[in-house]
């Protein structure tokens, strides 16, 4: 996990994204505890309120739930929820920027498609 302080993306969103990434990659399986606000805040040297905002966002999204007096845990089905939500923004986040960079470099959409196929085969 790494926070990019220069990116201009609000820190609390980065915290939320990083926890989501860890859930997606299986670092935090369902019903396991995620690091506490204090742990995250001392690790990255950021204000606990900022961390809390990111964690609260995930609790509102159905990714995390709170066990009173214990901490925050990963919800059942969190992975599927995150995947469904991220698929929706995949076009804006990746496809649109890919095409605009390709246009700058004079790469045609057809060439992009063949590059993607090639990449998928090599993977």
């Amino acid at each position, binding site marked *: 996990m790494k926070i990019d302080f220069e990116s*201009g993306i*609000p820190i609390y969103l980065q915290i939320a994204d990083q926890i989501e990434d860890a859930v997606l990659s299986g670092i935090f399986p369902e019903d396991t505890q995620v690091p506490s606000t*204090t742990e995250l*805040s*001392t690790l990255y*040297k950021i*204000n606990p309120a900022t961390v809390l905002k990111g964690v609260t966002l995930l609790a509102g999204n159905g990714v995390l739930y709170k066990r009173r007096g214990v901490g925050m845990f990963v919800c059942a089905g969190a992975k599927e929820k995150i995947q469904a939500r991220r698929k929706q923004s995949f076009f804006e986040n990746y496809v649109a920027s890919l095409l605009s960079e390709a246009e700058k470099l004079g790469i045609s959409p057809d060439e992009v498609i063949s590059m993607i196929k090639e990449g998928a085969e090599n993977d």
Partner: protein
Amino acid sequence: MIEVRNVTKKFRNVTALQGLNVSFGENRIYGLLGRNGAGKSTLLNLMTNRLVPTEGFLYMDGFPLTENDKALGKIACMGEDTLYEPSVRLRRIFEWTAIFYPGFDSAYASALAEKFGLDVRKKIGQLSTGYRSIFKLILTLASGAEYLLFDEPVLGLDANHRQLFYAELLARYSKRPCTVILSTHLIEEIANLIEHVVIIKNGRILLDRPSEEIQSMGFTVSGRKEAVEEWCAGKNILGSQEIGGLMLAHILGEHSGVPASLTVTPLDLQQLFIHLTNS
């Protein structure tokens, strides 16, 4: 809450603070920023009653702060000066501090000393600049006070000890919520630690805002010089830089309607500070 109301402080014919109004609420981490001589230390010394205001009043939870032992006992301040007699041993000062601050946590102070590699058997006069800062940091962190004031907390500390201090401060804050006021020149290091920013310039408050709002206060546009100049006309420009045909302009306000030919990057707290406090 500590409230500073219409406070003016004069030293003979020098006015250090001029009609200052600011409040520090409970359980928040504040950054108190300003250039050298702006009046930061004067403000901190007034809040701890080491100085008396020329005009105006200071309040703690609604009661006057001046000569108020109960209120002052809630505040611990790590000052710039080291006023202890050089021949006194550190552990003796821990014992004395426990008398002034009944909430002083000796076990915590010892644990911190160990983490920082500070030998409490040493005399205060034997400490290097960095370890003098560390010793005073420990006294303040372990004081048990509800308001922790730090004037240049990391003066002389190496990178390892600075990181350790920030981590310990956050751990202390999470365990026992308190109000923290950090006055420092190392803005980048505390930018994400603080919840609220207060900037002083020439003895007056220049900015008093939640950190969250800082990023939306301004932005930087860059691109071809002519294009930047044309787009920036009539906008509130904080400053600009030119490198060959490339121009960067720092602008105050919301960014909207920036053409695609220009690149927008966020303005961070340090850049905002530099441009706002440049005379």
